[in-house]
């Protein structure tokens, strides 16, 4: 049984008469101890999806099951707030500037864990060591920390109550390249030690490649391709995934590549066309894509792709 199961999840934001469908029917699962990478460009709904997973945002429709039980009515009611945690996008903004590191780490313990007060300090030391910070950091405030150290504290705060699932929203995007690599290595070590599952949200494909077991590619609120990491990076099938991967600059100055440049821009989500949402930028578009919307279909094994052209190719083969 998967740790987390999302079924046909929708989220529509309404501003007066204007409706913005941010997430449009996402079905996903995350296993215990697994890292699921969630990639896509700005505005594709990956953050909204992450916020629904931790219960910061109420889905418009669809269901979230955690550890086999529905979390309808919120995580707090279901008594599992402690087991699902989040690391936010900007570490500097998600830490309280007036609190010392030890206060920030003690707060979730007091609120969520049933821990004797005399054990709190021991737990703080333990989690600081886990994220690679010495006990001397407990007395610091966030402005006395570098960006990488702030992110370590944010990770420590998410882990201190021993959660089963942590949603990491762009945890490395605001960090320098050299610090990024260390945070990724740290997260992998923590996962090995604690058997915690991660939902790793990022637009940085190379970081996702280094940490995720499986990758879901999102475009305009839908998952268009889902497979294990190697399959996505080696043999992506969806035309959007292919274009996205080809757009990532590579570190090889002698390389001359054929790049797939997508025409135009991501359409406005409140004025989506009928049919496939990728139709206006897709090199494989045909009549059917303008009439009906495709669904995620398996091509080989657990490799799912949401595209008529790919499905036709597979059925002919």
């Amino acid at each position, binding site marked *: 049984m998967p740790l987390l199961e999302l079924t046909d999840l929708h989220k529509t934001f309404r501003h007066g008469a204007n409706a913005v469908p941010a997430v449009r029917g996402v079905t996903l699962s995350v296993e215990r101890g697994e890292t699921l990478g969630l990639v896509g460009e700005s505005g594709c709904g990956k953050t909204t999806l992450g916020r629904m997973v931790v219960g910061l945002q109420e889905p418009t429709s669809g269901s979230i099951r955690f550890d086999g039980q529905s979390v309808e009515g919120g995580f707090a009611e279901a008594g599992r707030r402690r087991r699902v945690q989040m690391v936010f996008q900007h570490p500097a903004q998600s830490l309280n500037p007036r609190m010392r590191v030890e206060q920030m780490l003690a707060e979730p313990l007091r609120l969520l864990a049933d821990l004797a007060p005399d054990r709190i300090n021991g737990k703080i030391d333990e989690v600081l060591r886990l994220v690679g910070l010495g006990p001397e950091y407990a007395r610091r405030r966030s402005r006395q920390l570098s960006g990488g*150290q702030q992110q370590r504290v944010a990770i420590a705060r998410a882990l201190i109550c021993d959660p089963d699932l942590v949603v990491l929203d762009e945890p490395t995007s605001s960090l320098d390249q050299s610090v990024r690599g260390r945070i990724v290595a740290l997260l992998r070590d923590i996962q090995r030690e604690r058997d915690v599952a991660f939902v790793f949200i990022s637009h940085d494909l190379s970081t996702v490649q280094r940490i995720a077991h499986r990758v879901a590619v999102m475009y305009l609120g839908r998952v268009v391709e889902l497979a294990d990491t190697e399959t996505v990076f080696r043999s992506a099938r969806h035309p959007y995934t292919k274009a996205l991967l080809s757009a990532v*600059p590579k570190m090889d100055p002698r390389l001359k590549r054929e*790049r797939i440049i997508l025409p135009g821009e991501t359409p406005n989500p409140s004025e989506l066309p009928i049919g496939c949402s990728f139709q206006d930028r897709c090199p494989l578009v045909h009549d059917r894509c303008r009439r009906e919307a495709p669904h995620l279909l398996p091509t080989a094994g657990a490799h799912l792709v949401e595209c008529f052209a790919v499905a036709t190719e597979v059925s002919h083969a």
Partner: protein
Amino acid sequence: MIFQQPRSALNPTMRVGNQISRVLVLNQGLGRGEAMEEAMAMLGHVGISGARRVARAYPHQLSGGMCQRVMIAMALACRPRVLIADEATTALDVTVQAQIFDLIRDLVAETRCGVVVITHDLAAVSEMCDSMAVLYGGQVMEVGTTVDVLENPSHPYTGFLLDSIEREVDPRVEERGVNFALAGCRFGHRCPHAYEACAAFPPMIPVGRGHTASCFLLQDESSHAVARTD
């Protein structure tokens, strides 16, 4: 110059067409009508379809990629000889970044202007640049053609930077900020190879044709090499 964050570099209270034509009025002494026509042409030039509609828009009505195109149009309006792109695509998604790179490449081929790309993204450098300089703490660490520097990094900092992207980084290099108070090599306090000589400022030492690096280790190597041939 193309600035880092296109949306905050543009004037939020002016229509973008006016912002571009103003440059032409002030610098080229064009009349307003003339300048506006030229601005429209520039917008078309940077790959904006419907230049007339976009020119009437305010920056907040445009996407990040569009604002960046507007910035580029403005920077190119006076036909500069050198274009400075400061993290021009850092705030953009990769597919838009690919479009902007293509655009800059085409413009360079067409106008023959020089481009200085300022970025922390080494992969972008690898794709865009003929030669590169690596800076740390206000000092140039290494200079050379992109191929030379990336394939044969000679400064410890360049090596560390490259490792951080594809491999695990050297654990001996501490995660510390730049210390500008440091005399001598600014990378000295983080460098695993640092020794007494690094308290002085190292000269640029040639390591190949047009490829130099600022590190005493290289001097020793080259003097050893000289000693051996003697």
